[in-house]
């Protein structure tokens, strides 16, 4: 896979504070890379440097094998971005905004492209509406329309579904997947919704204090957590189960009649047999498998603990 984006030792310092610390990663053709991290980890600073609205203190960025510093104009014709934290001229109508950006990006035959995207994002009825009159979700969809205007080969998406209702968020994700599949669009994707990152991303990096601390596929990262959580609803034999857990020294937490037991998957069978032997009956059972979110939380907690030590 050819690299569409290659970042080498990217660093950003503000005085003594290092916001991004020698970060290196790449995005292949048609690949979606998730960038995760707690607030202040350096995600937004990294994206700003990749867009050229902040100059790095050190390091290099290459798009399509070309230096971003030397070929900014040429590169940005084929790239775009969407961030829910950025606005558009609030007095302008949807159509005015898109026509201006179509000219800036030199979109050939822009009218049909605009119409197609407005339809894709289900905002074609908002053509004459002013940006200030749009709902948060409509604004995000307009930002996405702007982001896809120039048939980008790479797109940087900073929490693109943050303000969308679940139904629209699903449609947006489907659209992004379709763009990737049909046009091989590469994407850098940030989100606090881990399920979304798991669904969308081919690879994930986790940033903390400006450094990449983890890089792998979402599946591999989730698989690094061996424990899952067994959830049992026990109504009749509550006292019995308390005694059982106490005697066997089984770690658990209790919320009303629900018992949550962290356990390895292969030990679930023997654990349930032991319960049956003690004549403890449960009304409901569910197994919560570890996901990317669990891995993320565990990793960040560990990092914090290490800092304290």
């Amino acid at each position, binding site marked *: 896979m050819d690299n569409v984006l290659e970042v080498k030792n990217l660093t950003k310092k503000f005085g003594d504070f290092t916001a991004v610390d020698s970060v290196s990663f790449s995005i292949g053709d048609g690949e979606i890379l998730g960038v995760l991290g707690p607030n202040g980890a350096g995600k*937004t600073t990294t994206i700003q440097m990749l867009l050229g*609205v902040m100059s790095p203190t050190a390091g290099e960025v290459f798009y399509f094998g070309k230096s971003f510093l030397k070929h900014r104009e040429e590169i940005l014709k084929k790239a775009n971005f969407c961030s829910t934290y950025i*606005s558009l*001229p609030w007095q302008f109508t949807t159509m005015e905004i898109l026509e201006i950006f179509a000219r800036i990006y030199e979109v050939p035959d822009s009218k049909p492209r605009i119409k197609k995207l407005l339809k894709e994002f289900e905002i074609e009825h908002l053509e004459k509406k002013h940006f200030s009159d749009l709902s948060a979700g409509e604004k995000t969809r307009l930002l996405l329309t702007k982001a896809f205007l120039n048939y980008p080969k790479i797109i940087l998406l900073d929490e693109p579904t943050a303000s969308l209702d679940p139904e629209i968020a699903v449609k947006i994700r489907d659209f992004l997947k379709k763009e990737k599949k049909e046009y091989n669009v590469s994407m850098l994707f940030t989100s606090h919704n881990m399920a979304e990152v798991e669904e969308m991303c081919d690879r994930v990096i986790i940033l903390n204090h400006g450094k990449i601390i983890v890089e792998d596929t979402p599946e591999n990262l989730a698989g690094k957590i061996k424990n899952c959580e067994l959830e049992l609803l026990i109504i009749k034999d509550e006292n019995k189960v308390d005694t059982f857990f106490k005697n066997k020294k089984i770690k658990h937490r209790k919320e009303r009649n629900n018992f949550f037991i962290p356990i390895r998957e292969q030990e679930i069978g023997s654990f349930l047999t032991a319960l049956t032997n003690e004549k403890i009956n449960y009304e409901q059972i569910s197994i919560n498998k570890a996901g990317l979110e669990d891995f993320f939380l565990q990793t960040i907690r560990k990092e914090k603990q290490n800092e304290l030590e």
Partner: protein
Amino acid sequence: MNWNRVFAMVLRYFLYLKHNWDRLSDMFYWPAFDLFLWGLTGLYFAKLANSQNAIFVLLAGLVFWIVIWRAQYEINVNILAEIWDKNLVNIFASPLTVKEWITSLLIVGFIKMILSVAFSALIAFILYRFNIFLYGFALIPHLLSLLLTGWAAGFLVASMIIRYGAKIQTFAWTGVAIIGPFSGLYYPLSILPHWAQTTAFIVPSSYVFENLRQILSTGTFSMEKLLISFGLNVVYLIISLKVFMRMFKKSRELGLNRLVQ
């Protein structure tokens, strides 16, 4: 230089004008208001002094000051528009270059200055029979010199705006006023105190307004003064553009995003 992108930004600023009635009032209401108020005051003084020239000197000062003011103001308000609209990141994460942006600001400023001056000149003619074409062809180079003064002042103020953001936006309205007293809009430089006359030597618009008064009284102007004003303007414009580019670079180092948060 990509003229498609320049045109896109010109279009953006004209649409901004269309959607902002307060910007329209800046273009037409205030110049008209000034001409009514100070024109009538001038009429009174002209009667007291028994000199028709006095009112023309005042009106010329009013109309030609608009050139400097509009040229400076348009650059700054359109930069502020990108900050107010939180659109700065959108345009600089696009292929648009700073030079293309500057060119679009100059084009928009020039067109709007022409509209403002034409409107003010029309009002001055209708109300007071003051015809700016009485300056003949000399009008064009003098207008151009004033335009350059406005642009130089505009980019100096713009440098501060792009570096410090909307918190110093008041300079967009007041910045160029500082050279007003030293330009001798309504009075000859000889009435200024010595220190102010010395300062006026380095103010390009002072030479232009001296010439404009001379044309009114003698029908001639000093080519030397015109050339000095152009020379100073070119130097100031180069300096202000360099300062602007430097401040833009500094602002980019800190992140343009911070200006729109």
